[in-house]
């Protein structure tokens, strides 16, 4: 068998808990061609350069080849990305000018009007109430799961409120999202029979999810309601509105991106702080460090390890390599955020790190749309967790991980506690 590249090894499920040694090897070739023709970019400077290069497209429909990894044996892996990210474009898979226009149209519904973008900051009391409720609920327990009981419920409750998705529907879309995410694999395991089976399920889940979003938007078209989705359907700005298909696709993106990533960041924050008792102690004594601290956690355990929809529209010379026209480009944010050329002692957790210009939310025109909301949620959640947990101890290290490689995060984080402060 041919030896696997560092990237392929990093993608193996067995290495999900700690891909960093493979990233380190990977960074020796900042732009590394993979056997399937994908170019993986793993160093900070090169990623920033490509994020600002107008010859790079994010439009998945311009990708000439399937982005899924090729089969390990004979069976060709199917192009799965399309199944997971719906066929109609949404802003994350669009290029300018459509990207800029659609993002411009969505933004005010999310943050508020340009002259007073207050919607996100207005959510702070709600977020605090939800976090308090979740922690209160754990009173009397000696062992908790920081994922199921804490990291998951907060973002999903918040995003439902922001978007106007009925909370009762949560179990349904939760299972679609999980199914779809578990089906996505870019590594050598993609061709396994199990993954191929999951793929079919993933497809179905996305279709049902899409159907669900379409119906929800239809309902809002007839009867406007609270939240961003209704506003997107009913309130056209000066530039008009979006087509139904694009609306559905963006709704899907928001529901999905709006919580999966945040869940993983909260879970990873708890895990990381419990692994670094000094940092935990520091944060307990200086709660204001939660603001730079969350930036460090975004760097340290990036919720979006890489992004996979880009491709070169021209030959691009970079770091001694030419990415040929048409080649898919993966930007490995999780690796760039540990690049020693950019961050001093990158594998150290430093809640007060200066000059922490991490790529956890990317950069350039696709910079995370939901960043202000995500930051607020995680600051409140992790801040309160640290303040209120008495003597928290990690039960299992490393904890079990989710299958997905992009949205990397622990499936459970079991924590033993002595109690919960008020």
């Amino acid at each position, binding site marked *: 068998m041919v030896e696997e590249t560092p990237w392929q090894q990093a993608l193996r499920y067995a290495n999900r808990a700690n891909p960093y040694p493979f990233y380190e090897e990977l960074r020796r070739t900042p732009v590394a061609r993979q056997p399937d023709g994908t170019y993986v970019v793993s160093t900070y400077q090169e990623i920033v350069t490509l994020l600002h290069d107008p010859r790079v497209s994010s439009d998945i429909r311009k990708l000439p080849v399937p982005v899924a990894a090729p089969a390990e044996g004979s069976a060709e892996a199917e192009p799965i990305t399309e199944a997971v990210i719906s066929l109609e474009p949404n802003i994350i898979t669009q290029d300018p000018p459509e990207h800029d226009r659609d993002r411009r149209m969505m933004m005010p519904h999310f*943050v508020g009007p340009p002259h007073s973008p207050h919607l996100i900051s207005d959510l702070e009391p709600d977020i605090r109430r939800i976090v308090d409720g979740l922690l209160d609920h754990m009173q009397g327990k000696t062992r908790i799961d920081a994922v199921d009981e804490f990291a998951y419920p907060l973002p999903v409750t918040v995003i439902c409120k922001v978007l106007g998705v009925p909370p009762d529907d949560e179990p349904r879309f939760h299972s679609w999202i999980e199914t779809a995410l578990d089906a996505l694999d870019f590594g050598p395991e993609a061709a396994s029979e199990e993954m191929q089976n999951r793929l079919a399920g993933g497809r179905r889940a996305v279709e049902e999810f899409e159907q669900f979003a379409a119906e929800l938007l239809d309902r809002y078209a007839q009867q406007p309601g609270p939240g961003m989705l209704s506003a997107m359907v009913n309130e056209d700005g000066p530039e008009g509105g979006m087509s139904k298909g694009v609306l559905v696709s963006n709704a899907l993106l928001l529901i999905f991106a709006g919580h999966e990533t945040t869940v993983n960041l909260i879970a990873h924050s708890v895990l990381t702080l419990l692994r670094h008792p000094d940092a935990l102690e520091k944060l307990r004594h200086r709660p204001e460090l939660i603001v730079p601290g969350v*930036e460090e956690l975004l760097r340290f355990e990036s919720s979006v390890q890489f992004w996979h929809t880009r491709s070169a529209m021209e030959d691009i010379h970079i770091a001694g390599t030419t990415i040929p026209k048409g080649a898919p480009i993966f930007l490995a944010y999780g690796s760039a955020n540990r690049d020693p050329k950019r961050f001093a002692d990158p594998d150290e957790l430093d809640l007060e790190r200066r000059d*922490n*210009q991490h790529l956890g939310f990317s*950069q350039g025109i696709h*910079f995370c749309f939901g960043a202000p909301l995500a930051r607020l949620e995680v600051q409140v959640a992790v801040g309160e967790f640290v303040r209120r947990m008495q003597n928290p101890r990690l039960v299992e290290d490393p904890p079990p991980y989710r299958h997905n490689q992009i949205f990397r995060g622990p499936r459970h984080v079991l924590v033993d506690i002595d109690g919960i402060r008020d």
Partner: protein
Amino acid sequence: MRVAVDLNRCQGYAQCVYLAHEVFRLTGQEALTYEPNPDDERRLQVERAAAACPVQAIVIDRLDGVEGSATS
């Protein structure tokens, strides 16, 4: 308190605006203006904004509270 934005670095991500809209404002889509000497009550907001800036363009006074030290 005192703030300056290096507007050569700033790329108009507006993260600061969403976090502290009394201090940072956009005119149009991308042109950022701000209150360089906001009230001290805004400190937490401004610090959140500075931490959130994707290109770390926001400079906050490091001597605050040591009033008059610049001219003593």
